[in-house]
């Protein structure tokens, strides 16, 4: 079944066309990759999918319903959560607090929470247990009380992943999950993405520049260039596609 898809997405920033007539379709339970050279419009498309960016034309669908009019904070309630390209954490707050904000969707009625009504207290305990589970899943359980800005870079990436997971999404959008990580951290994050997909059954769409990671873990890849669809297919097909090779390495004269 198709989870999230978009059609004819066009975004213009002044005279610059960031995306023109982009289309993609993500099926349930798989890992999808979105690649393209710098400036191809990957992040813009991501922002369109997570509703941080409105498109000039085209539509985004989730389970067949148009979600063009949704606001960013509605997305986790639908079951879509995302991470950011440059780490975007609540840096002065602890790992646990960050994950708990991620679980905000499950927090219940704010007015009951404000006055600590009995229902809210029960809910609070549930949230806390959930946050601990997610932390253990991502092996953050020994860093829960540390302000995240004091954590190593790879851990911060994991905290961001944990925060996105805490809302119990169906689809998770990862914007360059291993950018700036060393090779060991890349290996770890690869495993985590696989676990999220295989064990939790969450559909993954990721933008990434690390080709070895994309080729290794993705089931299906979309390639875009200059804001337009260039190619799509399995990693093996993409590897052999002459158009993709030309876009990345330049055409032979």
């Amino acid at each position, binding site marked *: 079944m198709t989870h999230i898809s978009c059609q004819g997405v066009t975004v213009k920033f002044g005279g610059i066309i960031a995306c023109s007539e982009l289309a993609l379709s993500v099926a349930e339970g798989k890992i999808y990759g979105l690649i393209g050279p710098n400036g191809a419009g990957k992040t813009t498309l991501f922002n369109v999918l997570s509703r941080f960016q409105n498109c000039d034309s085209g539509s985004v669908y989730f389970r067949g319903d148009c979600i063009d009019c949704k606001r960013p*904070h509605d997305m986790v*309630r639908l079951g879509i959560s995302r991470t950011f390209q440059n780490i975007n*954490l609540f840096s002065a707050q602890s790992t646990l607090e960050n994950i708990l904000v991620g679980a*905000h969707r*499950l927090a219940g009625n*704010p007015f009951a929470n404000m006055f600590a009504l009995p229902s*809210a207290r029960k809910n609070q305990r549930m949230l806390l247990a959930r946050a601990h589970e997610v932390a253990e*899943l991502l092996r953050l359980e*020994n860093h829960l009380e540390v302000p995240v800005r004091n954590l190593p870079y790879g851990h911060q990436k994991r905290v961001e992943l944990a925060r996105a997971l805490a809302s119990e999404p169906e689809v998770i959008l990862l914007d360059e999950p291993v950018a700036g990580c060393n090779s060991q951290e890349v290996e770890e994050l690869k495993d985590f993405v696989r676990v999220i997909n295989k064990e939790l059954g969450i559909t993954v769409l990721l933008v990434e520049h690390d080709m070895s990671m994309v080729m290794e873990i993705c089931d299906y890849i979309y390639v875009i260039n200059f804001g337009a669809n260039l190619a799509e297919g399995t990693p093996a097909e993409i590897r052999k596609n002459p158009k993709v090779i030309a876009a990345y390495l330049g055409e032979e004269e």
Partner: protein
Amino acid sequence: MSESRRLGVRGPLPGVPQSGTASVRDAERKRAAIASLQAGFRRQNIFLVASLFLTAALAPALPFVEDWMSMQASLVIIYILAAQGVSILTGQTGLVTVGHGGFLAIGAYTSALLAKYFAVDLSLSIVAGAVMAGLIGCLLGLIFLRLAGAFMAIGTLGFAFFIGTIVNNVPIFEGRDGIQMPHSRIFGMLLGDTGFYYVALAVLALTTAFVYILLRSPVGRAFRALRDSEKAAESSGVNRLFYRTLAFTTSAALTGIAGVLNANITGYVSAETYGDIWYSVDFLVATVVGGSSALMGPFVGGAFIVMVPFYLEQLADFAFILKGVVLILVLQFAPAGVCDVIAKPFRDLRRKQLQRIQDDVEKTSPPALAALFSRGRQ
């Protein structure tokens, strides 16, 4: 929304080891040890605050305490209340306000008008002042929805001037002549200085409990998330419009309560005092000096703002200069406030205790999820 995910909300995550295995028992043991340690920390905090209030409640009975002191202490409490309001908006939600004098005026005039024309009891007056200030705070929050940083400061400053102009010029507020209120009564009883002090102290106890609960709840968490990164907060499902407006409303309501008490302490309100912005500036300074993110910050800041001019009366205007100097020193050397400096060694100690538990468990058991991740790698 799929049924499977809804069920997943209640059940355990499939990736987490099921109960009964060794690793689960370790994880549970650790979680229980940490939870009990944290419950202990919470009890210590509550005990400290409770003993502070108890001391304050017994103080009037002490032999060396004189009558005039209760008046001064009530004034301190009023500033603490207002600073609590400011700290929710500025400290927690990250919206700098230089306009909370406006909400103080709204609370004060609500109380004065109700007392003068309808002889309303102080208890009802406090509720009415909170509701009135809260409503206008809600409206202001909606109007200033897109403002942030310095623009928010200027916007709220404009609000303070706006309220000042209204109380100066709209006839019902009686401008600089002011409104003389009948003597305050609570539940029908006439209030003396000491009686008023007890009312103020009781109100402060209630608001402190409220702020404590609020800051630890998902609502407080949403406020801080919006302060640190609006984008990340929204992507986590925090409704920016709702929580910003909620922060404005609760913050305004708390300062409105301070306004009601401030009107009743003198029994007189006029545009002379409520028409300018000095209250707004004082509240902001109190919040910054005390520390805007700590529960006790407003207590330190409120006491500072009231007691410095009081003890330095003979120095006259020099007290103003001293306030400014202290503000600059605090911003330079303790940007998180005086309270944070006092609390830091205790916080570090607690963090070390927590870490020790985590390290202990680490030594006695292998990482709980090692098995799981080797499975994922196949």
